[in-house]
């Protein structure tokens, strides 16, 4: 047990000791956005997605700070709930990707030979395919529901995680303490999940954060092409609607996109900050 917890404690204590400015900004911005997402019902004054809470195509004013859209829905409300949707989709789809990626990466990294060959060929092939288009095809033919979007994005984003984990496994399994674990006769499962995985995870964390980011952008891109769940407020779908009225209502495009960019900037800062933090060679300069 101590073996499992110790690396994590080390990791967290190192984390709080020396934060670089990017990481710091990232953490603050993301906490702020998560807070907004959690408090959505308290800081908005219309139900999300409700039509005709105002006159359609109203420019920004006091009742509607971001204006209203073609159906008279309040853009401010939908944008705030949109953050919620983006974060939910980003995190849940990455959890799915992690489940598949950890299994594939761990197996390929620990067992050499045919298992590794087959898994890595499969990973490489999936990595080359345009993942966005694959997600789009999945959602388009399986139905445009919230769950399907999460599943589709999760299914297309596992290969990157698998590769990273495999690389970590390959280097860690050669270290003396693994040899020691083998020598005392620990089972493969114990070695994989009790010894190697906890040591491999820190290196993968920044990548996972950036993957959440990609997932959010994929969801927005799908929404922008009209592939989304119309019953859930989505920043991408809002930009899709806005596209039809670009010449008359700029606010329909401006605000959802601004918030989406803000979200992505925050996650990029967090991810890049973590990478810098983990790579001391680059950090010193």
């Amino acid at each position, binding site marked *: 047990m101590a073996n499992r917890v110790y690396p994590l404690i080390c990791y967290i204590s190192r984390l709080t000791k020396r934060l670089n400015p990017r990481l710091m900004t990232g953490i603050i911005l993301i906490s702020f956005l998560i807070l907004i997402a959690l408090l959505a019902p308290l800081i908005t004054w219309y139900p999300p997605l409700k039509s005709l809470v105002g006159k359609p195509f109203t420019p920004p004013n006091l009742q509607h700070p971001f204006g209203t859209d073609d159906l008279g829905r309040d853009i401010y409300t939908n944008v705030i709930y949109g953050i919620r949707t983006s974060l939910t989709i980003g995190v849940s789809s990455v959890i799915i990707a992690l489940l598949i990626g950890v299994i594939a990466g761990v197996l390929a990294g620990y067992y050499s030979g045919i298992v590794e060959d087959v898994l890595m060929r499969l990973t490489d*092939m999936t990595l*080359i*395919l*345009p*993942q*966005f*288009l*694959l997600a*789009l*095809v*999945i959602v*388009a*033919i*399986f*139905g445009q529901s919230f769950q399907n979007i999460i599943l589709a994005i999760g299914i297309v984003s596992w290969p990157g995680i698998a590769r990273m984990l495999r690389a970590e496994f390959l280097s860690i399994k050669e270290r003396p303490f693994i040899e020691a674990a083998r020598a005392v006769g620990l089972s493969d499962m114990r070695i994989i999940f009790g010894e190697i995985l906890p040591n491999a995870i820190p290196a993968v964390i920044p990548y996972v954060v950036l993957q959440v980011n990609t997932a959010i*952008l994929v969801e*927005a*891109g799908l929404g*922008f*092409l*009209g*592939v989304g769940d119309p019953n859930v407020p989505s920043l991408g779908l809002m*930009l899709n609607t*806005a*596209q039809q009225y*670009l*010449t008359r209502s*700029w606010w329909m*495009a*401006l605000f*959802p*996109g601004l918030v*989406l*960019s803000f979200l*992505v*900037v925050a996650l*990029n*800062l967090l991810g*890049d900050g973590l990478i810098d933090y983990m790579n001391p*060679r*680059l950090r010193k*300069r």
Partner: protein
Amino acid sequence: MSPLVAFVIRRLLQYIPMILVVIVVIFILVRMAPGDPTYILVGEVGDESFVQAARERLGLNKPLHEQFLIYILNVFRGDLGYSYLRSESVSKLIIDRIPATLILVLTAMFISAAVGIIIGTISAARRGILDISLSLLTLFGISIPYFWLGQMILIVFSVYLGLFPLGGMISVGMDYQGINYALDIIYHLTLPALTLAIFNIAFTTKITRGSVLEALTQDYIITARSKGIPERRVIFRHALRNALIPVVTYTGFNTGVLLVGAILTETVFAWPGMGSLLYDSIRLRDYPVVLGIFIYGSIMVIIANLIVDILYGILDPRIRMR
């Protein structure tokens, strides 16, 4: 057989199975989807006799393995089905759109490679305020969703300033010939290419900067400096040259991202490429075309990767041996 030819053949044999994987993925997905696969392969046409005829033709009433063989043979013959909604074969619809997409992708690729490498090197060489502000710009360039950036650029430059057209590839009804025709296309291309390039410049800058920084820590840089070579020469001749390898890899293997970028950008500017076709097909629920675009897009990306791989083998003899 010369080693180079052998190398090319080996690579070809590695990449062809990937196309097979694409087809298998599509086949499995269509069969797993809820409802009758005929509607996905034909589109929602409504006419029952049509659907029945298509079912016969695609062999959908035969056992699964026969369906699979029929499907693979059809794809390799270039037959991706027929779009009943548009009365046109799917392949023809897509192939007609490929040149426009390629123009956009290649223009953006060249602009971003040139600009990104220069900015990235400068950013790495000059630490301090310039580097920090360039890094910030890069961060925004990477983060801002380019389709939204395109919308903003369109609103400012076309809707409010009226400097550029609202969309399309040529001015309708002008019938330009020769040089004017080319100029007209460039005029329409400017904003979409700029949008796509901005995103990619940011990425190229980021990769170049990291790569040059890495190269600057190497021993041969210390050697070069201690020999008294001017700093500018050290950076551009010694560091950048070695730093370019990851940048080139990135540019080559990034085609998939750029293709998706083009698809989204085209939608904003109504640029008549594969993206606009995809957008319309999603709206019309013209599934055969959506599937076709995935297949063609994947094949384009596979070919681009193959080209980069082979170029590598030609440029670097060590890789050929592996």
